[in-house]
């Protein structure tokens, strides 16, 4: 499914928080249409890694290129780049003062300067896509966690992004709502979207991942296809981690 052209490339990227070395010499690339799943223990730098991709954090050295644009703090193209990269957060981060429909329309209207009618049409299309067209006029606080996360996914899709980043999209959800969100993500994967997903949902990973990445202590320890990753991981750290989470 994935093409050959790399759409995200990290070349020897390092990131520090003060003295703390959060990303250590990261080199990795994501091809257009590729679905990459990143896992690893807490504090290993997974969030930091994907937050660098849309410039929510900035790396300190090395080269990071996304969709042909080099990412760095002083870049003039960073706003343009963020429109191409959607992001879904663990805590949803919907705008609580706006209705669901307004949440979806505000980006296209204010950032992309699309007319209201067209923005609304797009918003309704993507609400259908995440299976909650009937919630359009409610405020986010009236929705369940699973519904809120699906709205958040639709909000990113409304920007017509070419890359979608997910940072533990289901870890704040009650167990019975996890699948409704994962189903939407699987459907999204089927459309050929480039996705980078931080998650510990290994069932999802098996179903959609083209590439599995295991991180520990700021390093990429292992990169493999799902078959190899789940059956025969190279490193002991990765094996120990998998044993632990697959137990549950």
């Amino acid at each position: 499914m994935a093409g050959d052209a790399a759409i995200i490339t990290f070349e020897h990227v390092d990131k520090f928080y003060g003295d703390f070395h959060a990303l250590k010499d990261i080199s990795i690339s994501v091809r257009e249409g590729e679905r990459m799943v990143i896992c690893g223990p807490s504090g290993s730098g997974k969030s930091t890694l994907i937050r660098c991709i849309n410039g929510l954090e900035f790396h300190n050295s090395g080269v990071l290129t996304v969709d042909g644009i080099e990412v760095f703090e002083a870049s003039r193209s960073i706003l343009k780049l963020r429109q191409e990269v959607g992001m879904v957060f663990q805590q949803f981060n919907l705008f609580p003062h706006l209705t669901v429909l307004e949440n979806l329309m505000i980006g296209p209207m204010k950032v992309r300067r699309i007319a209201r009618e067209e923005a609304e049409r797009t918003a309704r299309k993507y609400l259908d896509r995440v299976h909650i067209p009937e919630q359009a006029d409610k405020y986010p606080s009236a929705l369940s966690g699973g519904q809120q996360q699906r709205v958040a996914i639709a909000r990113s899709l409304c920007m017509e992004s070419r890359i979608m980043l997910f940072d533990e999209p289901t870890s704040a959800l009650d167990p019975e709502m996890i699948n409704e969100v994962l189903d939407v993500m699987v459907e999204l994967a089927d459309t050929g979207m480039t996705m980078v997903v931080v998650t510990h949902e290994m069932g999802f990973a098996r179903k959609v991942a083209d590439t599995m990445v295991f991180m520990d202590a700021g390093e990429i320890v292992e990169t493999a296809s799902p078959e190899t990753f789940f059956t025969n991981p190279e490193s002991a750290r990765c094996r120990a981690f998998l044993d632990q989470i697959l137990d549950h």
Partner: protein
Amino acid sequence: MTAQPDIHSPRGRPLPQPAPLARTVDSVTFSVMLYLVIVGGLVWLAYSGAQAMGYNWQWYRIPQYFYTVTEDGFQWGEISLGLVATLWLSALAFLLALALGLVVALLRLSGLVICTAVAIGFLEFIRNIPLLVLLYLFYYVLGPIFGFDRYTASILCLGVFHSVLISEIIRAGINAVPKGQWEAATSIGMDRGQAYRYIILPQSIRFMLPPMTGEVVHMVKSSAIVSVIAVAELTTIGRNIISDTYMSFEIWFTIAAVYMAVTLILSVGVSFMEKRYAVSQ
């Protein structure tokens, strides 16, 4: 599964209830009664004191200062006009303070070293000058230099003084919006200005409203200070009437009551607004 437990007879340990005395002291009725007793006591004290001085009460002369009806028709009295002047002054000064306060707060939060330094410098400068001195500064120093009259000096002085307090309210309100809102706004490509305008400020209003009410009330009350440069507002009018009539007790009671009525109405009005805001969230 056996028989359904009877929900009307709980089997667990009952939860401790507040003591009867605590419940009574907490009740609204009790607060209102306590308030009335205190106010009544104060009024009685003042009255008996005045009586002991042999003060000649002339309450019947007060209504004419609110309005008069003669053969010429209905006319507003001096106190009413003074009240209008006070409200205008406070409103204009508040608008100025709001605009300036927003600018100072945004400068402070800009993350740029120079802007933050400018904001903090301004804040500390104004905060450490007494309001009265600030007023003299505006009227006697800046007034002649830039050629503005006592009204303009008053509005500028009150506006600048309160902008400092308001900027802190705005800053606290902005900081109360969760960081995730910034991240979500940023990740859909908004720049700082757009994020503030469409996402952050609308949400922070909810946090700002209660302290802002306090500020409006504070503004109305502190506007009385401009009476020292003879701006014809409520307090100045009160003083003028007294120097003509020597009814200091009646007039000061009346003026105090008028201020109190205005600030109470403002508080109640804003708490209404707060409720509506809370509902639409």
